[in-house]
């Protein structure tokens, strides 16, 4: 089934700091919900292992993440594909970072396609679950940026 994802978030700090964080595998590993492991396979390409719970089902997900069409420190396309006991999914999203006073604004928009167990059992809550997972990502990301000591320590 198809899934549309779009939204915007305010993150504290300058756009450059946000851009750096979004390109740092260590930050992403801590911020992506359920991320067990993330390793770089080539520049801007990563292998990721996740353990997730969506509605009535929980399980594992192994996938690849790639960043493309980079326009530092402004804009980037991220694509994800993978599969696991939860099912399989592919998705592409474009995100744009722009200054907004003392904060940065991150706008994202994308589409995904999901199949297997999640589509069959969790579809009724998939939209809210994806919102929840994205929300968790940004909560963690804000913490990273509000606490730069931890970021640099990593």
């Amino acid at each position, binding site marked *: *089934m*198809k899934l549309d994802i779009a939204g915007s978030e305010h993150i504290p700090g300058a756009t450059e700091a946000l851009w750096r964080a979004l390109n740092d595998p260590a930050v992403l590993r801590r911020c992506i919900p359920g991320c067990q492991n993330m390793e770089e396979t080539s520049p801007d390409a990563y292998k990721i292992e996740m353990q997730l719970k969506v509605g*009535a089902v929980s*399980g*594992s997900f192994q996938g690849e993440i790639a960043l493309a069409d980079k326009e530092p420190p402004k804009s980037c396309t991220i694509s994800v594909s993978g*599969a*696991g*006991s939860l*099912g*399989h999914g592919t998705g592409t999203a474009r995100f744009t970072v722009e200054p907004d006073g003392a904060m940065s604004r991150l706008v994202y928009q994308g589409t995904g*396609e*999901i*199949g*297997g*167990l999640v*589509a*069959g*059992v969790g*579809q*009724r809550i998939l939209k809210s679950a994806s919102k929840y997972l994205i929300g968790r990502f940004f909560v963690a990301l804000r913490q990273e940026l509000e606490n730069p000591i931890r970021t640099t320590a990593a």
Partner: protein
Amino acid sequence: MSRPSGELKFVSAKRRVREDRRFVAGRGRYVADIALDNMLHVAVVPSRYPAARIVSIDASAALAMPGVAYVLTGDRLANAVDPLLNGLDTPNVKRYPLAVGQARYVGEWVAAVVADTRALAEDACEKVVVEYEPLPFVIDTEQALDPSSPPVHPEHGSNVLLDKTFVWGEVERDFAESPRQLTFRVVWGRSSTVPIETFGVAAKWDPWGEILDVWASIQMPKYPDQIARALRIPANSVRVHHDVDVGGSYGVKRGIKQTVLTAHLARTLDRPVRLIEDRLDNMRAGDAHGPERIFDVEVAFNDEGIVRSVKMRALDNVGAYAGRSPFQLGKPIGAIVGPYQIKSVQYRAQAVTSNKAAQEAVRGFGQAPTNYAIETAIDKVARAVGLDRIEVRRRNFIRKEQFPYLIPSGTQYDSGDYHTVLAKVLAHADYDGLKREQAELRARGLLAGIGIAACLEPSGGNSSFEPLLNEKNTTTTWMDSCRIHVDALGFVTVTIHTTSSGQGHETLAATVVGEVLEVDPDHIRVVRPDSLASLPSNSPVGSRMAIMLGGACFHAAHKLKDKLVRIGAKQLGRPENEVAYARGAVTAGGATLSWTDLITIAHRNFHLLPEGMEPGLETMHVEQVPTGSKLPENGRVQMYPCHSFEFHLILIAVDPLTGKPEIPRYVIGHDCGTVINPHIVRGMTLGGIAHGIGAALLEEFVYDGEGQMLTQSFMDYLLPSAHEVPKVEIVHHCTPSPFTVLGQKGSGESGYLGSPAAISGAINDAVAPLGISFSKLPIRIAEISDAIAGAAVSRAEEQR
């Protein structure tokens, strides 16, 4: 062997259903209760894609887990077993228990993992890495019919499995001569029976005895033969244990792919193996979905509402494999005109494959969808000529004195009295009062509609649709059997030769044998030998067992009674026609031989037996299906022998804001001839109506545009519950069948065959004042409320 004259003692009496005791006490013996030593458990890896080439399967991580015994792939399995039975002549539509080379629907089993426990096997499934190459797929029924659609089986060349047009009678002339015509389309959504107990099977191979033991939750005709063929072993190496209770089926427990897979694993691993589907396995790939059908109907009629001819095209989306499902387009040919005097019919039966789960038989074998199309036609004719829907049915009904009645497609209806059943229902329900109630509901701001359905339940289950749709098939019997043994102490034991899935066959057999022998049925034991010790049986399909097992029991009991009479007559020195049999004793002129005397002679006194009689006391009978003994000629054939009748009259109220329908009144008139056990018939009818409510309002296996199945659990596949199922009032009538031993007809599909049509009719009557209608089942609450809201918007726009 005539019908019992005089009063029936046990048949039709409200006697307790003997099976109920163990079920109510929780002491049924289901397949999950079968514990075999050293048993392994199976879980399956489902396909993620609706169509994909299987590039590779890497099971090494799964096999490395402790407790994992084996991982089987489709390629390996295909080398060891033959394809599963396909009743049509489509040799290139091959079906194996696992996907071979290519997966054809989401959820299809791609690999099987065997481990010490089911939980371990499930965990190991997650470690099986399957590399797929996604292929083009087709989900939509009409797209599948399009020659440019990707074929589900490329070797077959197209998605068309069946496309056969029958013309019975002078259809074109009747259409030309009819002053009025109408056309419409209705769609029956993909639903099924969805039993609480999913399918399960346990198998054990004994290499030294060369025998395969099978315990299964099964309702499959010729099951041992199909297992033997697929496994390439002699049929007498397959022993199916029939003493397993089946926790619900109504057609779908055909589990042949599950059984062949499990049996193959048991042979390969030399250990007992069990596969019990969980709900997800069952819903998405138990291959147990029901018909999904588009009907395009043309009706020719006159100003008086008399229907003269019908053209019907039925297009069924059977899913990824043939199985028995295309035959569900064939069985309704035996009642293609419903209870009406329609002179001619053109019927085009089309079945297409798609990338959805495979279908299996579902209660009525295609009859409920067909009845929905026929009844929609009658409602539309009534509306077109401005007559009451009940009056139009009355005018078109076959009349009592016309039976036996030959319909255009070659089936003779046995008996019926439709006008009387209708009159009894109207009187019971107080039709005028019902209309007043409808008006009151409308006055309160609700939408309210009356629904009517009159339909037949063809019963007796021969298999005439097979030769009708496949000329290479020459089946003209679909027998069932009974053996009766009276032991040396005089106790009666009856054997039946199939599993039961809630139909009460033990009660049926004991009642009929008790009736003939005049022995209390409660003292009769009923047993189920395994398949190697069984007489021929075709399992409880096609609403047939009251007729077929009842007939076999009746004749076997008469043979036994005749033996007793001969033994008694010889001792009393009288001709057989001068002695009387009553309650187990034989009397003549004041002298009596008691049951014990007769049994003792049979078992111990060979010297007293009539000449030529074998010692002991045992009889058997293999019953042929009444009336159905010929192959089809010119597209015509006698389908099932008996035709039960049901007439539904219901009132539905719909909340215009939420769209939620309620059924304040549900009355059904039911005539299934002589009832053998009233409790069983009542249970069948109530359950059937509940099932029909599901099909009409709630249940559907939904696939999205990407071929993903969206309703895999009971959160999304909605079943009727106590909230949705109303109190049902049953009005009985009995028109005995002339073709059966006790006048009995079938009732295993009663209620279900007409309730979806009645509910659809009621909802359409309710919303008719808004100028909207529904032509696809299920009619879900959301669709009702959306349509009502849409109608309000268009009205507001018109007024502006």
